[in-house]
């Protein structure tokens, strides 16, 4: 057990564990100390100096985020000396920030703006230090825009990219007045090793890093009577969109969201969960085929097989482990399956010219924008997905439309490609793809539902960075007799740093798993780079809970029982992993450089 330390903060005595920071101790007694460079997901930097506090007997102020408590310390978090210094530092930060707040995408959700308003900082105290060359916004990437003029050098993005993602696309370069956050060799964002995950965006306190926005193009398409505009929304959007519209974190707004999108003029509002279910059928079949080749025919196949739903993860493995791409499932992500089917199967059934269809995806993700633009993703003969929107962009579009979201009736997704199961919904949380796959695979192999209460496979849920589980297969149906007695081992990783641990095992030949789910973002899609800001551990847990609640509320909870899925195989695809599936639903990967 750790030693206990007793100290006084603003006159209140408090006892905490040794090693606790002053900031954390103050939080426990509801004293809020303002911070900027501090983020609970990241290591402590102590460089913005906003959180300085006064220690009795000490001339200099100390950063509360970076200073551990000491016995008998007396701390003042809001003394005149502290307030004056804090306001002065705030004024310094504002002086190097491009304060065009009225036109900033992060306006009203900017930590610098909030704090400087709270402290009523006078913008005219200091001379503006914004450099002309910094006002050039790097818009080269499909996913992430970088505006140095709004950067306040807190290094949260740098720490995010290094610690959570282990990609190091952004780093500090130069020093003193020229110090800035930069890419490798100052190259534009589209030429560097970046997975487009967007975690830097959700960790940025200001508008220096934002997603590339497409909503004006979408409005144009909606306004064009020639176009048939459809949208599909990802499972994790419905549990987070509410945050953009004034609802508490973890509120499910599925029905209202569908109504809003219909009222905004989308010709059809469909569900990505549908293609999530389809992914389970295709990916599950692929896994069973690989296992069959390996166990029955003793062929040399790439195992473990790894999921490919997360485009950030896919780009990561292409850059970092280009010689191990065979481990990736060849399945496209649900978004891209949807796009390919929208301009073929859907167009055909509805009798619409596919060239007139504009296919939009509402996603929790920044990398989906990049994915939509991959040259591989044109199997319908057109660009399969025309634009990927983040949850944030959707929130703003709903606001722009003038709808009173709160008052809207709830409605259901349109058909076809709007029917989904609980298994599709849980794709949004880490472990969800695995759980959905196991529900269906176990049933197909043994003819019985997986032996967990209410089909809830609890061991694969939760926020542990790497989760593992194993299931013994017994009494298999005759066609799967090669799996009899096999203990299927699975792993789930989220956050690319954890993905790297998993991959290093594979490279070393020590990976014990058959099937692995990897999501680029911590918490899975509910913590995606396109989700409302802020995203913290508490927020992730609430969104995850909402996802599983949504699952429990669904009448069908196994993907293979989705009637629309049965229908598409009967009418269009014929068999899973069949020729048509391969053409429309599967893809290839490419080796990329590490620099």
């Amino acid at each position, binding site marked *: 057990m750790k030693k206990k330390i007793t100290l006084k903060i603003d006159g209140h005595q408090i006892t905490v564990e040794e090693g606790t920071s002053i900031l954390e101790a103050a939080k426990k007694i509801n004293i809020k100390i303002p911070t900027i460079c501090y983020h609970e997901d990241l290591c402590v930097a102590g*460089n913005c100096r906003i959180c300085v506090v006064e220690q009795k007997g000490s001339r200099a102020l100390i950063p509360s985020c970076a*200073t551990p408590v000491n016995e008998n310390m007396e701390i003042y978090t809001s003394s005149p*000396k502290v307030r004056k210094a804090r306001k*002065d*530092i705030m004024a310094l930060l504002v002086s190097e920030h491009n304060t065009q707040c009225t036109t900033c995408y992060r306006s009203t959700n900017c930590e610098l703006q909030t704090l400087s308003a709270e402290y009523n900082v006078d913008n005219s*105290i200091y001379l503006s230090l914004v450099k002309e060359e910094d006002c050039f916004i790097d818009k080269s990437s499909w996913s992430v825009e970088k505006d140095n003029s709004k950067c306040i050098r807190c290094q949260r993005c740098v720490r995010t990219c290094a610690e959570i993602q282990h990609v190091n696309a952004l780093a500090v370069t130069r020093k*003193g*007045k020229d110090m800035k956050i930069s890419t490798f060799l100052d190259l534009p964002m589209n030429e560097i090793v970046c997975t487009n995950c967007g975690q830097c965006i959700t960790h940025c306190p200001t508008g220096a890093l934002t997603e590339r926005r497409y909503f004006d193009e979408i409005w144009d398409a909606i306004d064009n009577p020639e176009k048939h505009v459809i949208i599909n929304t990802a499972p994790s959007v419905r549990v987070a969109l509410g945050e953009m519209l004034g609802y508490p974190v973890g509120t499910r707004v599925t029905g209202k969201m569908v109504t809003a999108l219909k009222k905004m003029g989308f010709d059809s509002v469909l569900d990505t969960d549908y293609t999530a279910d389809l992914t389970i059928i295709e990916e599950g079949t692929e896994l069973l085929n690989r296992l069959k080749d390996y166990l029955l025919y003793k062929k040399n196949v790439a195992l473990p097989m790894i999921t490919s739903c997360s485009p950030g993860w896919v780009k990561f493995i292409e850059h970092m482990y280009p010689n191990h791409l065979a481990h990736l499932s060849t399945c496209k992500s649900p978004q891209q399956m949807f796009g390919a089917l929208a301009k073929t199967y859907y167009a055909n059934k509805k009798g619409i010219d596919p060239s007139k269809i504009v296919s939009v995806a509402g996603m929790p993700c920044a990398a989906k924008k990049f994915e939509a633009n991959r040259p591989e993703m044109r199997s319908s003969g057109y660009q399969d997905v025309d634009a990927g929107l983040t949850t944030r962009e959707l929130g703003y579009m709903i606001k722009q439309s003038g709808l009173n979201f709160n008052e809207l009736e709830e409605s259901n997704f349109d058909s076809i490609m709007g029917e989904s199961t609980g298994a599709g919904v849980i794709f949004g949380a880490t472990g969800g793809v695995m759980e959905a796959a196991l529900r269906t695979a176990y049933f197909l192999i043994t003819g019985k539902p997986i032996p967990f209460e209410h089909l809830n496979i609890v061991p694969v849920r939760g926020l542990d960075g790497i989760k593992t589980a194993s299931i013994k297969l017994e009494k298999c149906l005759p066609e799967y007799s090669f799996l009899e007695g096999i203990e299927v081992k699975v792993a789930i990783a989220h956050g690319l740093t954890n993905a790297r641990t998993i991959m290093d095992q594979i490279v070393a030949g020590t990976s014990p798993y058959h099937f692995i789910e990897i999501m680029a973002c911590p918490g899975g899609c509910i913590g995606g780079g396109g989700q409302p800001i802020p995203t913290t551990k508490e927020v992730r847990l609430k969104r995850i809970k909402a996802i599983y609640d949504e699952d429990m509320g669904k009448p069908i909870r196994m993907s293979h029982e989705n009637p629309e899925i049965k229908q598409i195989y009967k009418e269009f695809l014929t068999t899973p992993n069949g020729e048509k599936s391969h053409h429309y639903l599967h893809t290839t990967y490419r080796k990329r450089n590490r620099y």
Partner: protein
Amino acid sequence: MTYKPKKVDIIFSPYSVAPYHILKETIKRTKEEVITELIESGLRGRGGAGFPTGFKWKLAAEEKSNTKYIICNADEGEPGTFKDRKLLVEVPRKVISGMAICAWLTGANLGFIYIRREYKYLIPELKKEIEVFKQHAKQINLNFEIQIFIGAGAYVCGEETALIESMEGKRGEPRNKPPYPITKGYLGKPTIVNNVETFASASMVCRYGAKEYKKLGTQDQHGSKLFSISGDSTKEGVHELELGMTLEAFVDEFGDSNTKAVQVGGVSGFCIPRKDFKNAIIGIGNTTGSSTMIFNSSRSMYKVLCNYLEFYAEESCGQCTPCRVGCQQLLNGLKAVKKGEKPAKYLDQLLKLAETMKITSKCGLGQSVTNSFSSIVTNFKEEMIY
């Protein structure tokens, strides 16, 4: 009572007693005895911060760790300081024996000389000296190895935690303290970082004993110290002087009889105007740095200050707000006042800013900008405005 500057000849005197003989004799004594001697001598770190050396080594010796490191900070970057170079050229064995005594006291087995890139030409000779030391260490059974590490040339890397970061291959940025290097330094192990001169002086304390050493200087300030004298002086160069002299006596000796101000302790030190020479004692109320720059009446203090601030705005590591932005604001603000773009009273705002920087910056760099800024702006205000 004022003290005339008294020249001393301890540190640069030829090796009348071989430094490695001092080492050999020292390690025959008990460690407690030697540490007490060092504490009693009143020796303070010669890098500028002035932390008591004996006390620091005592803390390091008490740290429980199988691995400890010693770093000799030869990143001499303070403008106007050039004594460490001279030490390494002329009396490297005194420096090395000081490191070895520290190693013996604290139980460190590996030491580094962190040398700035501009001093690269010293390395071949230094390597030879390290070979000589190896032989002596073998003879006295001292398990202590010395390596050379070449810095990349950032002023901030003279700050001990930034120095350690750069040795670990990272950006040279100061760390949050605590933990201090004494408990968690290079590679997370207890590390003693001291200036070149501190090691040489420690070796001299061991030679002469605290009692003898304390005879030098005044009641408050013991021993002798190296001064790098530059500017409008008749005797530029490195001088070893007893501590405790007034600035008046110092200027009489080294000035060109037209002295207007002296910058004591380098850019991070204080600028003292002529009117205060009489009462200013070097090392009290100002800093213990080596650099003393003498300005005569032909110098524009505005230009001097701009030069300092340009240096700071360039050499700040850039991580913490008060230092990165503050240095630029001081510089730009000062220029704006001079040009008449800001009113003269804007200087008061800048003085307040300097005070904020002093109490909120992460390391000594940002904290000490105010020393030169405030002392020049207050004492030479009219030069700043007109």
